[in-house]
C-alpha cells in the first residue's frame, strides 16, 4: 500500500499521492482506488488520511463562518453582499431591523448603503441557495472604523495560530482589535493608523511565510523591532 510523496512535498493537480488503504482528505480525490491531488499545495498524511494544504484556493461558504463583506446592492427587502466567494450573500432587512420589515416606513439605504462594510455570520447555505447572512449577534454588524486587508482564505488558520495564540499576541502587542473573516477579509481597528499598519504588516508576514516553522518567534521579533524603532523616532 504505497504512498508517493514525502511529508510537505509541493504537489500539483493530478499528482498520484497514494494507493490502497488510504483515505482521500482535503483537496484530493479518489479514482479507481488511487488518490490524486486536486490543487497545488503541500501534502501531508494524518492517520491514513491524505490531505493537501492548498496554497491557492478561494473561500467556500460554510454555515457558522464569520465573514466580512461589502454591500453591493440595496434591494427591496434586503441587501446583496459581496463576501469574496463564488456566491454573493443575502442579508434580510428583518434580520437587521429585528422586526418585520415595512416597506412604507423603512428606507433600507438609511440602514446600510452600497459600499458599506459589515461583519456577519453565515446563517445558512446549500447547493441550491445563496448564503444568507445574519448580524443578530454581539460583535456583528456595520463596520465604521479601521482598515481592511485581504489574506488568502486558506491561510486564515495560520493567522489565528494554535488555540488563537498568534492572533492574541498581535492584538496584545499592537493594541488593535482584529476580526478575521474566514473569507480572507481582515478588519484591523486600532487607536491610530500606525498601530493598524503594524498589525497588518504582521499578518502579511504570516501569510507570506505561513508554511514555515518558528514563525511565532519571528512575528514577535518583528513587532518588538518595529515598536523599538518607533520609540526611537519619538525621542
Amino acid at each position, binding site marked *: 500500500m504505497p504512498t508517493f510523496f514525502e511529508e*510537505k*512535498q*509541493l504537489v*500539483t*493537480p*493530478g*499528482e*498520484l499521492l497514494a494507493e490502497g488503504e488510504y483515505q482521500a482528505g482535503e*483537496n484530493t*480525490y479518489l*479514482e479507481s482506488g488511487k488518490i*490524486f491531488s*486536486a*490543487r*497545488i499545495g*503541500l501534502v501531508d498524511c494524518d492517520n491514513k488520511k491524505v490531505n493537501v494544504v*492548498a*496554497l*491557492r*484556493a*478561494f473561500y*467556500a461558504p460554510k454555515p457558522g463562518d464569520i465573514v466580512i463583506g461589502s454591500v453591493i446592492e440595496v434591494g427591496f427587502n434586503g441587501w446583496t453582499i459581496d463576501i469574496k466567494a*463564488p*456566491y*454573493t450573500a443575502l442579508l434580510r432587512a428583518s434580520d437587521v431591523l429585528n422586526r418585520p420589515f415595512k416597506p412604507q416606513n423603512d428606507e433600507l439605504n438609511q440602514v446600510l448603503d452600497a459600499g458599506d462594510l459589515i461583519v456577519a455570520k453565515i446563517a445558512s447555505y446549500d*447547493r*441550491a441557495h445563496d448564503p444568507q447572512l445574519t448580524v443578530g449577534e454581539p460583535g456583528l454588524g456595520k463596520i465604521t472604523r479601521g482598515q481592511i486587508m485581504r489574506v488568502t482564505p486558506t491561510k486564515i488558520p495560520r493567522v489565528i495560530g494554535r488555540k488563537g495564540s498568534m492572533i492574541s499576541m498581535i492584538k496584545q502587542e499592537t493594541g488593535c482589535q482584529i476580526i478575521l473573516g474566514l473569507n480572507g477579509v481582515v478588519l484591523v481597528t486600532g487607536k491610530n493608523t500606525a498601530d493598524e499598519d503594524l498589525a497588518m504588516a504582521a499578518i502579511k508576514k504570516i501569510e507570506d*511565510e*505561513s*508554511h*514555515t*516553522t*518558528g514563525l511565532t518567534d519571528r512575528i514577535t521579533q518583528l513587532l518588538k523591532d518595529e515598536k523599538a524603532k518607533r520609540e526611537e523616532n519619538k525621542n
Partner: protein
Amino acid sequence: MNDKQEKLIDKKGIRLDGRKADELRPLKLEVGVLPNADGSAYVEHGKNKILVGVFGPREMHPKHLSRPDRMVLRCRYHMAPFSVQERKSPAPSRREVELSKVIRESLEPALFLELYPRTGIDVFIEVLQADGGTRCASITAAALALADSGIPMRDLVVACAAGKIEDTVVLDLYDAEDKLGAADVPVAYMPNLNAITLLQMDGTLTPEEFEKAVSMATDGCKQIYPMQKEALKTKYMHIKEETQEETEE
C-alpha cells in the same frame, strides 16, 4: 504555391527550422502574470505568444446561462489583430468560435463541474502572436491558469500537435508546416488519467500514420507536462524551500 517548393523535411530528417521529426519547439511557461485575474499564465511556444486569464468561479452573468446542478465553464479564444501576417479583424471569426468550443471541451474533463453549482468560470485566451499550434499552446496555458486560480482539478491538461509533412509524421508543426503540410493532428491530454480531451485532424492520414501521429502527440504532451508542473510550482517554490530550510535546522 511555388512549383519549386523547398522540402519541408530533408533526407536526413531535418526540418526547415532545424528540428528533428520528434522534436518540440522551445517552450516557456509562466504562471501568475496578470494581477487582476484570479489565475493566469503566459506561454511562448515557438513564436506563439499567448496570455490566459481566469476569473471565477463567480456569479453567472447573464444569470439564465447558469445551471442549477453545476458550474459553467466559458472559454473565449481570441486572436489579436496584429498576431498574424495580415491584420485579423478583432471581431470573432467562425474559426475562433469553434476553437473556443473545442478548447472548453478539452478543459471540462479536468474540472469537477458538479462543485459550485450556479456559478461560472471564465477563461480568456488572447493570442498575441501566432505561429501554428495556437490551440494547443492555449490549452497548456489555460490549464495552468485554472490551477493558479485555485479551482480543484483532476489533472493538468497539456496539448501538442503531430502532423505529416512530405511523407513523414512529425511532432509540433509550426506555421509553415501547418500551411504546407499534409495533415495536422492537435491532441490535448491528461497524462495521469491517460485521457485524450481534444482531438482534431485536418488532412489525410493512413490508419498507420494516424496511430503514429496520436502516439507521437501524446508523447509530446508527456514531454511538456513536467515543464507545466514546474512552471506552476515555480510560483509557489519559495514556500517549499523555506519549509525545507526549517526542517533541516
